[in-house]
């Protein structure tokens, strides 16, 4: 357990240290600023609609994916590229524990940035309307989406140095483009896992967000389960790669 926690701690420092947290934090603050200014002098129902039309897509389609792709890929990937993976692996710690610790750190880092961004945006809306009902669904939805991206890109980051590129292409072409072409394509989308949790906890947002949801049924429970499955698969895959792949 000591080793596990030590890996989580050091990895968190590695991922969020220096200017990275400041830059990601600044990016994450933009949705809050936008929604605050855009909802000035509006009635409550319009405020919620603006929130669902502008802040939620920005959070789920830009802030969370970019943050999680960068941090998820870096968690194991940076160790490999910096040559410190040998330092980590020549230890009496099961490979699955190393993989789990790395995923925990990556997910935690991504969740911290995403949730802070979402909290600010939701707070902006809540202050306008004196209705804090968007806060918890936003945080839960973003956390689940961040966790899903972190899980997938933890593995990809270990496999290839181009993981962020692959992630950005996936985001740009698939998540924000092709996956909107048909409702059934929404099933193959990471951000929508989090979005279903959000809509499941805030049903009144479904009218505005029906298009991105496609054929998916909203529900936080299902989303959480998908996250757990993705996480377990990511840990198993990363552990297998640590066991079998050469560390040059």
């Amino acid at each position, binding site marked *: 357990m000591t080793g596990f926690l030590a890996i989580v701690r050091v990895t968190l420092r590695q991922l969020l240290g220096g*200017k*990275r947290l400041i*830059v*990601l934090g600044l*990016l994450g603050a*933009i*949705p809050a600023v*936008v*929604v605050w*200014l*855009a*909802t*000035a002098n*509006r009635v409550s129902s319009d405020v919620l609609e*603006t929130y669902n*039309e*502008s*802040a939620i897509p*920005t959070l789920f*389609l*830009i*802030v969370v994916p*970019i943050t999680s*792709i*960068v941090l998820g*890929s*870096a968690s194991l*990937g*940076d160790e490999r590229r910096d040559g410190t993976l040998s330092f980590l692996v020549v230890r009496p710690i099961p490979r699955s524990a190393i993989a789990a610790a790395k995923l925990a750190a990556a997910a935690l880092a991504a969740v911290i940035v995403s949730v802070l961004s979402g909290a600010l945006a939701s707070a902006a809306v809540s202050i306008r309307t004196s209705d804090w009902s968007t806060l918890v669904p936003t945080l839960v939805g973003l956390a689940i989406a961040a966790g899903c991206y972190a899980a997938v890109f933890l593995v990809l980051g270990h496999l290839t*140095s*181009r*993981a*962020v*590129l692959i992630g*950005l*292409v996936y*985001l*740009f*072409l698939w998540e924000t483009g092709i996956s909107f072409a048909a409702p059934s394509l929404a099933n193959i989308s990471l951000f929508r896992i989090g979005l279903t949790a959000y809509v499941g906890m805030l049903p009144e947002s479904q009218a505005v967000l029906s298009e991105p949801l496609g054929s998916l049924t909203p529900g936080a429970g299902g989303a959480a389960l998908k996250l757990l499955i993705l996480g377990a698969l990511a840990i198993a895959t990363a552990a297998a790669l640590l066991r079998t792949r050469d560390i040059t």
Partner: protein
Amino acid sequence: MAEGVVFDLGYQPHDGPRLGRSGARRALFKDGLRRVLGLRRKARKKILPASLMAIAVMPALFFTAFGVIVGEFDATVELFDHENYFNLNGSMALIFVALAASELLIPDRMNGTMAVYASRPLTTPDYVMGRAGSLAIVVFGFLWIPHLVLFLGRAWVGSSGFGTYVIDNAAILWKTAVVSVVYFAAYTSIAFLVAAFSKRTAVAAGVFLGIVMLSGATAALVDAGFSVFGLGAILDHPGYVKDWILGTNTGTWIPERAGIEPVMSLLVIITLTIAAGLVVTGRYRRAA
């Protein structure tokens, strides 16, 4: 008393021409091209540029082939036009610039090879311009060659005849070339700015794309009456200028909704390019 002797090992100084600053610039430019295109590198370094170019050119080839096969020549000419084509390969260019800019700038700083450049007859502006120049050639080619292919394809299948089409529509070529330069300037300035301050290529690419995509959030602000935020719609400025130059109307761009004139968008891009150039040059002066 200790004695010493120096032996002549036959070392010969270089008597040939010294290429000087222009030679160094050319070498830097060629190195940049190789990095961006993955030339003289492993095959997987070529996959991205080759794939993106293929995706960019494919629609032009497809619609030309379609016109030839179906025989609906004039319909083909209407099906896919130059102004909409920029919306497709503009997105490709964005991803390409995100990766290429960081590949061009970050490794030199992180691997400690800036000292090598500093010890050559290259000034810091030479270095920055050389890197920008390599990227410019590739991105311009990436953006404009599909238009050339589309233009020639439409001339080929159009009912007015090849020569007539070319003569009547030659202006399209220089206009699309200018628009390609505008897209390049808009994207590369920010990409270089981010890459100049980042330590990792992946993070720089992510932050750059994040900034560009988040600029789309200014739409909500503009619609709420804060027109000045229309100036921050980086993603939309090139498209707005494109419509102005080509005399078309392919979308409701954020600057347009903010009441900003297209020439103002162009001014924003030019200002951004100059400012980025100055900041990056200053940064590299300190780094070298």
